[in-house]
């Protein structure tokens, strides 16, 4: 079977991800931002597929696009949009944010120029049928304890959310 992971698809998906990512922060209407965010998440899922990681792509679609953005939209719909649209989009933290972005961008360029040796010259071609098994093996065998600790953290967060949201338990 011929691989579909051609450069065209990479640039196509990356372009969509970047453009819709820009739309997320520039749209005044938060619902439009959320829709653009869905596009970003879906194209990132496509990039995972190109890296022979179908399981990660599926989880990305279910959790992020299908779950988290739905909750985003849920909250946004209840906010008074007229007020949000008239508000200042770029507030006082603009300068700090620009500085942080510049530093991070510089770091990225530095690593890209200096650290070519870190990256493998060519992406390893793996049989995609193994991806789910590999993910499960590393989660439930190699890194079982960290995984369980993370699930405990999530449980604490859930309980916290319930306690904060409910007036009377």
């Amino acid at each position, binding site marked *: 079977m011929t691989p579909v992971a051609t450069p065209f698809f990479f640039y196509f998906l990356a372009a969509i991800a970047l453009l819709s990512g820009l739309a997320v922060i520039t749209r005044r209407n938060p619902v439009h931002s959320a829709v653009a965010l869905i596009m970003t998440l879906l194209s990132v899922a496509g990039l995972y597929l190109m890296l022979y990681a*179908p399981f990660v792509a*599926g989880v990305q679609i*279910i959790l992020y696009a299908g*779950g988290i953005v*739905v909750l985003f*939209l849920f909250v946004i*719909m209840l906010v008074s949009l007229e007020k949000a649209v008239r508000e200042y989009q770029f507030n006082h933290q603009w300068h700090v944010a620009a500085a942080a972005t510049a530093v991070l961008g510089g770091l990225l360029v530095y690593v890209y120029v200096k650290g070519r040796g870190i990256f493998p010259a060519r992406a390893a071609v793996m049989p995609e049928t193994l991806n*789910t098994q590999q993910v499960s093996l590393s989660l439930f065998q190699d890194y079982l304890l960290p995984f369980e600790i993370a699930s405990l953290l999530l449980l604490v967060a859930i309980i916290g959310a319930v306690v904060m949201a409910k007036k009377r338990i």
Partner: protein
Amino acid sequence: MQSFLSYLNSKLTPGEAGNFAWATIYILLIFTGISVAVIAMNWLERKILAHMQVRLGPMRVGPHGLLQPIADALKLLIKEDIMPAEADRVVFWLAPVIVVITAFTVFIVVPFGPTHAVTDMNIGVLFMLGVSSLGVLGIIMAGWASNSHYPLMGALRSSSQMVSYEIAMGLAVVSAILMTTLTPDGVGTLSMIKIVQAQDQQQTWFLFRMFPFGFLAFFIFAVAMVAETNRAPFDLPEAESELVAGFHTEYSGFRWSLFFLAEYAAMLAVSAIAVTLWLGGWMRPFPHWLAGDGWDAFFSFFPAATFFLLALIAFFGTVRMPKHPAFRIQKAGLGAFALVLGGIGIVLLIPAVKDRIQDIYWFVAKVSVFQYAYIWYRGTFPRYRFDQLMKLGWKVMIPMGVAVLIVMAAAPAFNFVW
């Protein structure tokens, strides 16, 4: 051309074989099949509901209202397409598109047979659940973009309902996937085709595996899938008595018909998941108990027999038609329809066709049972109140799903399997 013909002997789905031409043909076939099925469902739903309520249902357009769906489709296409003045134009336009795309995309992995699927993904079930969960985005966007109260209420209800029942659904699906590991080599799978093959290997449907836990998981899924598709008795997002039409109140004409199409396609999709996971997918009834060439031959006549039966019913309708000049065209039409059905039945008797159609027939037959059940629910159950719906989802279905999942995961670990 060479690869086009050589695929006919292949034992792979076109997606896995990398055969682009056949994949396109399969996609077109499935698309037409779903659309025809939606049209048929439309007529059947109205007729069956009517008969359940001791009415006649559509009777005027064509014999027994057979042409009613076509008349409706034409009406919807000609109707004015209104967009509310204060609506958010882009999102309003995008919402039905997203709903339809997600509803149809899931059919890529639906296994109508060991080779009759567009492709077989390693993450098949995950893909289906994920893409169908994107449909809720379209509903929320439709409700919000209409800039009106009823649609917004409908969208809020729909999103909270779908997000809640997705959890119960996921737990039930995971229990079924755990059952695929009960084969001797102990390797499970998420691929739709391999799940059915696992049931073939274990010589039982997962519905009856580790009884009653397989059955419980199926029950949770069967309830959650009705809630996921916003159908009665969980059709609160579009409850007519409270919300006019819920999230698609402001939609009209073609856009509304897209929502309609997507709703029925989603019903078919979740039923396909249920059939694949619990009811043995494309396998004919009792493939191991009633094995042997004689039984194979016996069961292979079912597709043709079904069409002959339908042709017979249509033929009786033609004969019983009143002898009046006003009925002449109807009579000729129904007679021609009977002939077409009989002709399809004869085509299905050709050996080459008969062998290839088997798996598709049994899969479709099982899915149609679910479609009938959907109509049946709508005719029988009163609509739930919203807090009752949430209570059922969170306090009954999810704990039950977790319990079933724990048993499913723990019992094989202690070599306790039945």
